[in-house]
């Protein structure tokens, strides 16, 4: 049976890995290629590299980084942040990324999802959904959590599936970097709304919270950053814990 995936996330700014709390207050956590290698060796099932490459120079730096990571690790990795066209995607996939993630661009230009999945295949297209609870409902936010939209999270999830997304990377802005556990109700709601895999993100504290995301939250994969960067837990620690709790994982 298909194993649940544990996915370390590298938030990158320039040439460094950073980590913030609720999308703010970024601190440096090291060299991306070295960190990618460490997670690969620890048994990560995939990697996600997120950054905001807004300028041409930053985009060039990122392509070089993707090329280096692709030569160093032999597991799939997704690159996201600041991608707004099929051309951006092609450049990243050519450099060795396996998938691309779009969040803001998906909302601002939903046609990009269908165009990209028709060209590269759905399996390449991860749609990021950044969610924040407001008045009892989860709303979709864009621009790294700065811009509020009127979109309802579960409805938007269904829509991106219809448009051809292969996976959903669901991040709780309320929980991001807080180490207080995933937003289980949010994760469950989205997982049940769609038939494509859902990656839970935001709030990982330890193996127990990841276990909850995969069971109660019904996620297909769990993404975490802080707990791995700080060496609090290794990917292996998490997987051993999950295996003991009868969750199918690759060890």
């Amino acid at each position, binding site marked *: 049976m*298909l194993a649940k995936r544990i996915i370390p996330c590298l938030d990158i700014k320039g040439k460094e890995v950073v980590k913030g709390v609720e999308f703010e207050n970024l601190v440096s956590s090291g060299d991306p290629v070295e960190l990618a290698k460490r997670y*690969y060796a620890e*048994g990560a099932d995939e990697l996600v590299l997120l950054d905001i490459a807004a300028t041409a120079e930053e985009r060039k730096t990122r392509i070089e980084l993707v090329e280096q990571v692709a*030569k160093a690790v*032999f597991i799939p990795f997704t690159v996201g942040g600041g991608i707004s066209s099929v051309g951006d995607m092609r450049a990243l996939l050519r*450099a060795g990324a396996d998938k691309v993630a779009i969040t803001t661009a998906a909302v601002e230009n939903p046609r990009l999802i269908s165009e990209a999945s028709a060209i590269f295949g759905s*399996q390449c297209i991860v749609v990021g959904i950044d969610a924040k609870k407001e008045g009892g409902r989860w709303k979709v936010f864009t621009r790294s959590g700065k811009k509020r939209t009127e979109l309802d999270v579960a409805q938007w999830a269904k829509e991106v599936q219809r448009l051809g997304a*292969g996976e959903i990377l669901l991040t709780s802005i309320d929980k991001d970097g807080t180490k207080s556990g995933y937003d289980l109700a949010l994760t469950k709601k989205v997982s049940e709304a769609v038939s494509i895999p859902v990656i839970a993100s935001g709030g990982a504290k330890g193996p127990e919270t990841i276990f909850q995301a995969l069971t109660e939250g019904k996620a297909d994969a769990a993404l975490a950053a802080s707990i791995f960067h700080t060496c609090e837990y290794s990917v292996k620690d998490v997987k051993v814990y999950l295996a003991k709790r009868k969750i199918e994982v690759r060890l």
Partner: protein
Amino acid sequence: MIGIVDYGAGNLKSVQNALEYLEVESRIVSTPNEIAACDRLILPGDGSFGFMMENLEKKNLIGALKTSISKGKPFLGICLGMQALFESSDESPGAKGLGIFKGRVMKFRTGKIPQIGWNLIASENPRLEDDSFYFVNSYVVVPDDLTIIAALSDYYGPFVSAIRSKNILAVQFHPEKSGTAGLALLRRWLSC
């Protein structure tokens, strides 16, 4: 020389990076002559069945691929490169596959589709070790000739995850993205 067939899509770079890591030289091939000059071929693939076949046709590569296979040169099909060996796929009705094997390519019926992630394979073939590999697929092959099945996996029911027939090895998963297990599989394929 090992040729990685380029039909205009597919993550060729990953396969090449894996071979480079194994210190094996390879080249990306995209013309009939380049294919003919190779003594081993890898046909990787993602995207749709129809898109792949249309592009192989456009680039005039179908004859060269069939010739290479019929000459007995080792051939490795990956993911869509496995499905392309069959006659047709439910994914793209009307598109003709390479037709090396008889059978169909059908969509998964249950579970989240695509299947994305690591799954176990069970094999009796000495060239394939039982291990976890990385899969990304919505469709699976259903060969008429069951003797070509080299490995089975389970996704809400059994499906064919590898086939082996004479000089052909084809796998539904991505060895180039399956960590050490995948690299070991590639190394074994390269050595025999």
